[in-house]
């Protein structure tokens, strides 16, 4: 095992940049994706019929095709198509539209929207009807029932599942190394190509992913445990007996 390359400031910078990009992509995709997921769930449950069908079609297509294919589709397909639009190179959006980060985030947001949308829809359906009826009976508006009662309860119910979705998302991020975005895997690839060491960089980034996953799991577990109204029997740090 040869880890001497770790002292090289260039490689340190690659790794750091890859780590930061990975976390950024995770954060942007998680936030954007979960907002989209709530919209998808609402469209399926309460939307007018065309919107409900659209949401179902969206979910089916996104969940029915490989993430890597979607990433290529947006970056090489839609991205190249946009290049041909007259005047777009002069527009203010151009730096964004040729940035692989933009297409990575877009792909992951759609993915989280589809997968977590179904999770949130299921959770919303399992909130006891009586609780929402009580809200209406006291004069709360539809929006108030949604934001004060329905969504908080649904998120409480599916938080452990959403944690799992976020961990899966973290480990989907290395796919972006295929569209020339400097993430952790891309950093490892560069180090491999220049030092001819295969295992050491991979071992290092595997360790970083593992550590990030553990931090993410514990952090979300903390949110779960501090969610108001949790039953005492479920207040365990590690979800094991």
């Amino acid at each position, binding site marked *: 095992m040869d880890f001497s390359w770790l002292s090289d400031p260039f490689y340190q910078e690659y790794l750091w940049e890859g780590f930061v990009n990975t976390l950024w992509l995770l954060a942007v995709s998680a936030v954007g994706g979960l907002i989209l997921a709530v919209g998808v769930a609402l469209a399926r449950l309460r939307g007018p019929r065309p919107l409900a069908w659209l949401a179902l079609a969206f979910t089916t297509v996104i969940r029915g095709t490989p993430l890597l294919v979607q990433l290529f589709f947006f970056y090489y397909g839609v991205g190249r198509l946009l290049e041909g639009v007259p005047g777009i190179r002069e527009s203010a959006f151009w730096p964004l539209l040729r940035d692989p980060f933009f297409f990575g985030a877009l792909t992951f947001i759609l993915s989280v929207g589809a997968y977590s949308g179904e999770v949130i829809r299921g959770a919303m359906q399992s909130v006891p009807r009586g609780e929402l009826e*009580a809200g*209406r009976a006291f004069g709360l508006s539809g929006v108030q029932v949604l934001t004060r009662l329905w969504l908080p309860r649904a998120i*409480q119910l599916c938080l452990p599942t959403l944690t799992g979705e976020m961990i899966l998302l973290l480990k989907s991020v290395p796919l972006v190394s295929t569209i020339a975005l400097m993430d952790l895997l891309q950093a490892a690839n560069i180090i491999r190509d220049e030092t001819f060491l295969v295992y050491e960089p991979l071992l290092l980034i595997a360790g970083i992913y593992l550590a990030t996953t553990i931090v993410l799991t514990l952090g979300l577990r903390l949110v779960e445990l501090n969610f*108001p*109204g949790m039953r005492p029997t479920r207040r365990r740090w590690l979800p094991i007996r």
Partner: protein
Amino acid sequence: MTASFEPSPRPQAAAPAVAAHHLIKHFGDLEVLKGVSLEVEEGTVTSIIGSSGSGKSTLLRCMNLLERPDRGELAIADEAIRFTRNPQGDIVGLDRRQLQRLRAKVTMVFQQFNLWPHLSVLGNVIEAPMRVKGLSRRRATAIGEHYLERVGMADRRDAYPAFLSGGQQQRVAIARALAMEPRLLLFDEPTSALDPERVNEVLGVIRDLADEGRTMLLVTHEMHFAREVSDQLVYLDQGRIAASGSSQDVFDDPRCRRFVAPAA
């Protein structure tokens, strides 16, 4: 903090708190209410009794429009509900803003309590006063604490519903309904989901409210209790009022004697 709040005096209106005229309600082909008229006078207690499936709960739920009647008239706190009707006279819609405003005046206690589990006891009680009546948190808290005190739950104000017994949850639900300072309180079988030993703590609270002169409409299977607290008793049978009047009249009525006899 509790002392800073005095309940507002109830209006001395002679008009009924709620007046329903000839309500008809279908669920599919089943006609659940077949033309029921009912008035609850300000400051009185009315109980609806009857066997399961007689339409009691549906009638009660029409009073705050959790169920929308198919035909009939309804007035809450002197205000006629503005229904939208089709040319045949069937009710097809209503005015949402009016509905939200009137629901703030008619609050409900449910059989299954229906507390909001992610809000504390106090949070449950102040939610509607803050969001619907627009009270400040401070003011809503003062009112909420007053009514929690009233039902004997003030010391559990920061607890969450999952940590309370059924009787305690129902007392919190009563405080939640009172905190809106409604013209009319609806009770939908408030003790039916409770363990037998918890029933009395809830009935005790409701009896005190009756003694205070609050306007209440109850659906209950507790015959003794209904007879004891009610000014008006309504016996519902297969979607029609079979007998109504004072407790004594209804209990003596031969048509409902068979139903009430085991308890009487």
